């Protein structure tokens, strides 16, 4: 459903078929796992079974003697380099050194002629451990008597982007506070108060393709093929680890079979490079699913929150303290923590806010980015408190939001810093509510809920791109954005084609190769269309300007009079194919036009990015549920999500992104949960880790595309594809609350809902978290 459609464009705004569709459907698309390089060995990783232990000794001699084994890598092989990495905090060794901090941590790695030999060699490695006290939960980690997982001064990573990282406090590795106003004073006379404790489980980003890397170490150059989302950040980290200039690390990124944040930042690349360095040969490592599940995940969370309102439902104060379990190493923990804190107040007007967000080390696998991180953690908590206040005050939840939501232009951050609100949230939530029949009568077991939130999107606004027109008029766009199924190659082609006045069919968009592709910070935070897309637009505009320049010279007219359309330069009845323009420019049947485009925080027409965030991604959903109280089953019957994208470059792709985010939000809310026993992940397979299936989908799903042309990207676009993930769990929880089942822990398994109903029917029992 498209609410507003822009006009006056030829490529932009059209639902072009994905340029990579044919290749992928035919099985011709190449992924890292499909690739082989000459002389390549196969790597397998020996992972610790203990979540916390001292490594007393490792004996690799039997494994090294096995025929077909080229090298066995252990911690002591890295004495000649500084082996610690982490883009936020350098706390993680390439491979365990003297101590393991999570079950699944790499302890040794084998490179061999084939995988079976490598696997057999792992079994021949003897490791003697001495177990250490286990700190497997947030509560244990916060105990003052708990052993410290990390000691010594904090070493900032290359890209934490968070100013002063502060000091560690026990096992709290990072802390972020938001403070404004006097919470105690402002809430003293509140008419309505709600307060509660909430639990969100660790979840996995499940992408079909597991982490896969090929690395070829040479003394002066490292070549890597990797399933990574942010090739340029990995390039810099690898250069830093192995003491090479950035340009001496070459990373090529083929298609990715999904990322969702699991392949953000540096993952298996350092270990693969180190193994190649030991083996003196290229090595390929492809994780199994259970290995990828201990490579990255979403933080589990414990949260306390209190919200107050006055008698007419006007919000007064919000306080929250929460702890995110980052696992053994920080990975993207600090950024997730800060973004979660940004989401905690929600897009409302407050008299006072106090948020205290803490990122805690535990003996579990590291947590990083996952689509809509931070917002997914906090929005369902924050929005369920809003509904509770509305219920207490006897106000319709939608009306409650109309009264309190920020309007465009109002400051979002309670302290007034950063970008003001750049979206029409009231319009968005009203559309979503209408799509699930908000005002229709409903039975006693039916509930409806809405949720509204914002996600600080865009990450750091640094993107470059180049556009190259060959002598035959064909076009290549070179941009660092990783194609992982979200469709950027198609969208970038459309953006370039629009500027050039040609069909996107003649534009090829290449995968990143850091040797040739211009720098782009990352593929994440809904930033690619907005930022990399802007760089592509600028580069294409520069190529268009050169075409006009030459056409002006040929026809001797002012450049404003020259139009580029249908792959031709035109002036009145005069027309020249692009190939002719290039031939005229160079006086030869060769040559090319190649131009760059740039986006940076300051200066030029991109100055508005400096405020941060680049834009506020809208997280709005409405849901209707039906409860079977005898079984505890929740049936999600109708849903609506809003993709408030400013301008949909490709409306179909926007809808698909929105639906994908819905599906994952639905999974996080209803099904998914990493289950640990004494620090060990026990459901490390896709049978017991339950990603929703297509048959689980609601009967009616509506994706509302809103185009108010209020984004900072090309043609007024802003990113999408994360908002629904954060909004959906919140809307489901609120719908369930509306049906009489307030919930404080996810996921909503039938058992949990049933137990909650049991508790509610026995008023004497305490409202314990189950």
């Amino acid at each position: 459903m498209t609410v507003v459609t822009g006009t006056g464009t030829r490529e932009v705004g059209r639902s072009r078929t994905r340029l990579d569709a044919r290749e992928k459907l035919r099985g011709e698309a190449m992924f890292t796992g499909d690739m082989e390089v000459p002389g390549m060995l196969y790597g397998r990783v020996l992972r610790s079974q203990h979540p916390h232990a001292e490594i007393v000794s490792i004996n690799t001699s039997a494994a090294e003697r096995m025929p077909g084994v080229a090298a066995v890598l252990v911690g002591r092989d890295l004495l000649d380099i500084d082996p610690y990495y982490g883009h936020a905090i350098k706390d993680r060794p390439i491979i365990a050194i003297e101590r393991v901090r999570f079950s699944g941590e790499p302890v040794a790695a084998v490179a061999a002629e084939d995988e079976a030999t490598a696997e057999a060699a792992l079994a021949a490695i003897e490791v003697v451990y001495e177990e250490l006290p286990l700190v497997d939960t947030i509560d244990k980690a916060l105990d003052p008597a708990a052993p410290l997982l990390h000691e010594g001064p904090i070493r900032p990573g290359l890209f934490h982007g968070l100013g002063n990282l502060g000091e560690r406090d026990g096992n709290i590795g990072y802390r972020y506070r938001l403070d404004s106003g006097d919470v105690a004073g402002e809430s003293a006379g509140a008419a309505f108060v709600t307060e509660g404790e909430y639990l969100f489980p660790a979840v996995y980003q499940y992408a079909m393709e597991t982490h896969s890397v090929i690395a070829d170490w040479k003394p002066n150059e490292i070549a890597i093929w990797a399933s990574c989302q942010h090739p340029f950040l990995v390039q810099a980290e690898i250069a830093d680890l192995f003491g090479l200039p950035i340009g001496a690390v070459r990373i090529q990124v083929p298609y990715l079979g999904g990322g969702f944040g699991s392949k953000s930042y540096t993952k298996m690349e350092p270990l693969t490079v180190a193994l190649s360095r030991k083996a003196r040969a290229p090595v390929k490592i492809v994780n199994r699913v259970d290995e990828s599940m201990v490579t990255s995940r979403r933080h589990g969370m414990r949260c306390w929150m209190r919200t107050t309102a006055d008698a007419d439902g006007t919000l007064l104060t919000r306080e929250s303290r929460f702890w995110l379990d980052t696992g053994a190493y920080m990975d993207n923990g600090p950024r997730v923590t800060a973004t979660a804190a940004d989401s905690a107040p929600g897009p409302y007007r407050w008299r006072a806010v106090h948020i205290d967000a803490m990122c805690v080390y535990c003996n579990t696998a590291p947590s990083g980015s996952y689509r809509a991180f931070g917002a997914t953690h906090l929005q369902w908590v924050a929005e369920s408190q809003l509904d509770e206040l509305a219920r207490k005050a006897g106000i319709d939840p939608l009306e409650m939001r109309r009264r309190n939501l920020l309007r465009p232009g109002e400051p979002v951050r309670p302290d007034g810093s950063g970008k003001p609100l750049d979206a029409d949230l009231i319009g968005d939530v009203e559309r979503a509510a209408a799509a699930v029949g908000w005002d229709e009568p409903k039975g006693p077991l039916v509930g409806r809920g809405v949720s509204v939130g914002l996600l600080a999107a865009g990450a750091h606004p640094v993107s470059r791109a180049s556009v190259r027109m060959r002598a035959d008029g064909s076009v290549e766009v070179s941009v660092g954005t990783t194609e992982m199924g979200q469709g950027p190659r198609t969208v970038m082609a459309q953006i370039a084609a629009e500027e050039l006045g040609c069909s996107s069919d003649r534009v090829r968009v290449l995968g990143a190769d850091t040797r040739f592709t211009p720098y782009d910070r990352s593929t994440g935070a809904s930033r690619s269309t907005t930022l990399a897309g802007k760089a592509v637009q600028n580069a294409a505009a520069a190529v268009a300007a050169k075409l006009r320049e030459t056409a002006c010279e040929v026809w001797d007219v002012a450049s404003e009079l020259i139009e580029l359309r249908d792959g031709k330069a035109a002036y009145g009845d005069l027309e020249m194919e692009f190939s002719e323009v290039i031939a005229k420019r160079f006086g030869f049947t060769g040559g090319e036009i190649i131009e760059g485009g740039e986006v940076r925080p300051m200066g030029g027409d991109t100055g508005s990015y400096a405020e941060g965030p680049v834009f506020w991604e809208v997280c709005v959903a409405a849901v209707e549920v039906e409860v079977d109280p005898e079984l505890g089953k929740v049936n999600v019957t109708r849903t609506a999500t809003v993709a408030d994208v400013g301008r949909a470059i490709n409306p179909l792709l926007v809808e698909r992104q929105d639906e994908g985010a819905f599906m994952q939000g639905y999974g996080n809310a209803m099904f998914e949960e990493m289950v640990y026993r004494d620090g060990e992940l026990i459901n490390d397979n896709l049978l017991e880790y339950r990603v929703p299936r297509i048959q689980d989908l609601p009967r009616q799903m509506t994706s509302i595309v809103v185009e108010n042309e209020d984004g900072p990207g090309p043609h007024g676009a802003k990113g999408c594809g994360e908002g629904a993930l954060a909004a959906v769990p919140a809307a489901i929880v609120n719908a369930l609350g509306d049906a009489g089942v307030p919930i404080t822990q996810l996921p909503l398994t039938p058992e949990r809902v049933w137990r909650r109903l049991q508790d509610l029917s026995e008023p004497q029992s305490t409202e314990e978290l189950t």
Partner: protein
Amino acid sequence: MQTPASFDYERATSVEGAIASLARLGPEARVIAGGHSLLPMMKLRLAQPEHLIDINDLEAELSYIRDEGGEIAIGALTRHVDLLKSELLAQHFPVFRDAEEVIADPVVRNRGTIGGSLCQADPAEDLSAVCTAVKAKAVIRGTDGQRVVPMDEFHVAPYMTAVNDGELLTEIRLPLFPGAGSAHEKVERRAGDWAIAAASAAVWVDRSTIHDVGIGLSAVGLTTVHLKRAEELLRGKPPSEELFQQAGQVASEDCSPMADGRGPVDYKRHLAGVLTKRALSRATARALKQEA
């Protein structure tokens, strides 16, 4: 481990031949049908057969659903998808379609067989409960001929059946009596998942009394649970919601669930009761043709 240990492989060309091979190779040989249960077990090295006898070419002999007058006969190699689509089964025992709609996904249903399901003897298997409820009999063939065993004797222990080394399950027989109605109820964590608990019920109604009844439960015991005491309670009585409620109560008492990744004991017990009640109620409505 994600790869099976090495094994010899043989494709049977006749039931006779398959049985001869099984007899010759003894306990180290296993039949492979759809492979959806066996292959995962082999990959996890929970099963390490030295010989696999593949019976997938025996569709002509082993894949069918026929009305044999007084009985419906189902070949052991009949796939889930065929059970799902069979109008004959849907007409006499709609419980099969109920179950097949919620068993796994199309990929598994296209290859997995009723024989494999029953022989796997996983207590969470839906079809075992279905077959228990409809009082199915299993036809087992060896070199010395065939024997027919009721479901109670077929599942002897967790993952153990009455099929001995050198034998093959060839057919399932469902006796036909008038006044039949049947239904399957299941709660799972997500679509196509194994049951947290499931209940199958069949009733045979005669002049508005329950002439006979069968109830089988999945995932709430070491093997498929046959609710004999609840059947006893129902037999000869006029059907009513109150009576089904009581039968559900008995189901909760008589099952013996274990906690697993799908649910804890108290919740499974509770579900056994509710699902038994609902399955009986729907089966009866079907017998009385109050529900399509």
